[in-house]
């Protein structure tokens, strides 16, 4: 920052005015929706009850946060001070109203954080700006990191199993491992369409649904096995990708976005209403579970456990599912990386950068767009078939717009086109929302009526906004070009055009 030094110095009166204004706005925002609660009474009539305390708390929180943000100039100090102040106030409140013995301790902790933040801010303000460390040679290191990451992924279920036992590790392998990997795969699939070819697709979940229903219907009506249905799911999803692709080829940017969104909604509405085909809202249940290439994961004599002479536990199936989705995701990754080096992959990226230049140089834009759509859809279909075999149950509820939005957010947050970035973003977003399920301990602080699950999606939405503001170009914004003259060097993300369709 080239700002003069005295401007960097926080100014108490300016910070106070600013915080007062923010508090006033918060009061305006909170007045009808927060301060008055609608409730149904015994006669089922809607009545309204004042609840001023919520509004007052919101105003106070915003005032304190804004004031501290105005007084502290460094974001690290702010990140320390604002929770510190909240903890201090909360501790004091608890100590006074509920005679909580820890009240004083909590207050002291908050105050300590607050003082620490001011000290940190003073030090950082006087310190010279840090000089960016020179970048080490990255090619070798990134290869090493990805190999280590891969090894860790393969070892993850066994480490968990050894550490927590079959009961304790089930949650970690299933809710974290499998769930995150599904989104990694979906993110990589959509990355072909959005990140590489630059076509904004808001209805990706439709292909996921096509894959899931393909397996669900074929296995329940014709008794086909998962390994036959998996390629069929991919082919059918790709087919739908082409069907959707044809009419929208002429559309650009946001027109493409709304048509893909509409397509996703159409598929969902049809699945809900065409009961003869899809059983409507009730969905399709008792879909055959996954087998180890024909050997079922049961306690029976011909089961997987008996075959290998192991003691039967359901964790075997979960671990197999984990490796299945890991291999599928890696397949997506490898195919994408290889395609990038082929003419078609270069054509996608060229199309993203400049469609008119592409056309003038003789790139067949129709085929380029269609292949991107079809391939992206195919991987969505694979993931869908996996979803069906994992859940044993599919219903239209699983394929709402929120899913499409989440996958798109993963791609954009990952840095549009960066494979590792997409994987990191999936871990952050899906792992983060799963962790939010574990907040039951907050009940001890806020009382039994506090239900943390309610706040899960609220925090999810807020995190999406915050992460975009923090890193608008995604976590990994530099690109490695697929073709280069002499030396492979990373390209800054700001030099890369975005998906315009």
């Amino acid at each position: 920052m080239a700002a003069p030094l005295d401007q960097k110095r926080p100014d108490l009166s300016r910070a106070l005015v600013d915080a007062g204004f923010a508090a006033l706005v918060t009061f305006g925002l909170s007045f009808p929706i927060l301060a008055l609660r609608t409730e149904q009474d015994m006669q089922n009539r809607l009545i309204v009850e004042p609840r001023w305390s919520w509004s007052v708390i919101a105003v106070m929180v915003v005032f304190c946060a804004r004031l501290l943000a105005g007084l502290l100039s460094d974001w690290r100090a702010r990140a320390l001070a604002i929770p510190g102040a909240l903890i201090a106030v909360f501790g004091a409140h608890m100590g006074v109203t509920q005679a909580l013995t820890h009240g004083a301790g909590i207050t002291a902790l908050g105050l300590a954080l607050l003082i620490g933040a001011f000290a940190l801010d003073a030090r950082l303000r006087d310190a010279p700006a840090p000089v960016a460390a020179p970048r080490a040679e990255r090619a070798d290191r990134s290869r090493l990191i990805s190999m280590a990451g891969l090894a860790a992924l393969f070892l993850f279920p066994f480490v968990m199993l050894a550490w927590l036992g079959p009961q304790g590790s089930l949650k970690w392998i299933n809710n974290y491992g499998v769930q995150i990997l599904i989104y990694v795969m979906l993110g990589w699939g959509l990355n072909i369409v959005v990140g590489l070819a630059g076509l904004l697709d808001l209805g990706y979940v439709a292909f996921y649904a096509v894959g899931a229903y393909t397996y669900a219907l074929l296995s329940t009506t014709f008794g086909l096995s998962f390994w036959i249905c998996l390629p069929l799911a991919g082919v059918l999803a790709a087919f739908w990708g082409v069907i959707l692709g044809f009419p929208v080829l002429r559309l650009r940017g946001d027109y493409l976005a709304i048509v893909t969104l509409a397509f996703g909604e159409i598929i969902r509405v049809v699945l809900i209403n065409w009961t003869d085909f899809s059983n409507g809202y009730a969905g399709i249940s008792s879909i055959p579970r996954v087998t180890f290439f024909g050997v079922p994961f049961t306690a029976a004599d011909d089961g997987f456990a008996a075959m290998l002479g192991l003691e039967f536990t359901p964790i075997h199936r979960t671990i197999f599912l984990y490796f299945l989705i890991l291999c599928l995701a890696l397949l997506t990754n490898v195919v994408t990386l290889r395609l990038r080096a082929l003419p078609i992959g270069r054509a996608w990226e060229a199309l993203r950068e400049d469609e008119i230049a592409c056309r003038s140089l003789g790139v067949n834009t129709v085929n380029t767009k269609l292949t991107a759509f079809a391939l992206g859809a195919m991987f969505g279909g694979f993931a869908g078939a996996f979803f069906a075999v994992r859940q044993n149950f599919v219903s239209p509820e699983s394929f709402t717009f929120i899913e499409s939005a989440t996958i798109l957010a993963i791609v954009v947050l990952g840095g549009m086109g960066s494979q590792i970035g997409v994987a990191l973003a999936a871990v952050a977003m899906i792992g983060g929302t799963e962790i939010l399920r574990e907040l039951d301990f907050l009940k001890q602080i806020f009382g039994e009526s506090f239900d943390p699950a309610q706040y899960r999606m609220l925090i999810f939405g807020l995190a999406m906004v915050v992460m975009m503001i923090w890193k608008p170009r995604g976590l990994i914004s530099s690109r490695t070009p697929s073709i280069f003259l002499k030396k492979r060097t990373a390209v800054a993300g700001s030099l890369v055009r975005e998906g315009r369709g």
Partner: protein
Amino acid sequence: MENFLQQLVNGLTLGSIYGLIAIGYTMVFGIIGMVNFAHGDVFMLSAFIALIIFLALTQLLGLASMPVAFLIVLVAAMAFTALWNWAIERVAYRPLRGSFRLAPLISAIGMSIFLSNFVQVVQGPRNKPVPPMFTDLIHLTDGPLGVTMSYKQILIMAVTAALLLGFWFVVQKTALGRAQRACEQDRKMASLLGVDVDRTISLTFVIGAALAAVAGTLYMLYYGVVNFTDGFTPGVKAFTAAVLGGIGSLPGAVIGGLLIGLIETFWSAYFSSDYKDVAAFSVLAVTLIFMPSGLLGRPEVEKV
């Protein structure tokens, strides 16, 4: 014939609501080229605000006159929703101005998720029924199947028409409208000529939210029930309407809204209500195949 006329009345009522929301989409898109995904949820929020103010007026303050209550509710909902959208723009979109194109879109989707869950947390997940208002009917034709029009429907169409007229006046005749149209054409040039671009964009969000609040109040009045999930479907329909009419075009948004409302109502009346969403979206897809920039949109000319 009577059925047709009846459905025409119903369709125009629904279309008015869509048109009012669609203006918010189209204005924001026109000026900053962003699909404001949270707009549907701002609409839902405004319906809740209207509901709460209505209940507060009638229960806590004991106001008995319905027309007065309606007028106060309308104005207050417009004001509070406008404040909300102003704050949302300030917090979630302004820091991303000039950033790359998909960043504000994702931020808006996050905001949309936040808003609907926020309303769920603070007001509860249940449906909120509203006592019926303005239920008297006017018989336009006689007979057992006669065409009727409720006071509600007349009110909705009248309020929509009046506000659209006022809005048209603001955009065409005032300095704010001139600044807004200038920013829409060329933001950089407008700022060089002394237009405060940030302020104009803020005001665009404020106006869009005020119109969405009108739609929200009318929606609450018409259906008599609101829920925190009510933002998504009307939002997507209104966005569809804006695209159908040609995104960026204000008359296009209104025409698109009316068209979508009519398509939905007629499809429900003559075929099946299950597939009314499919009908609306299919019409959109077919229109875009033959008219890629919508009914009244300017074709996008790309200079090399």
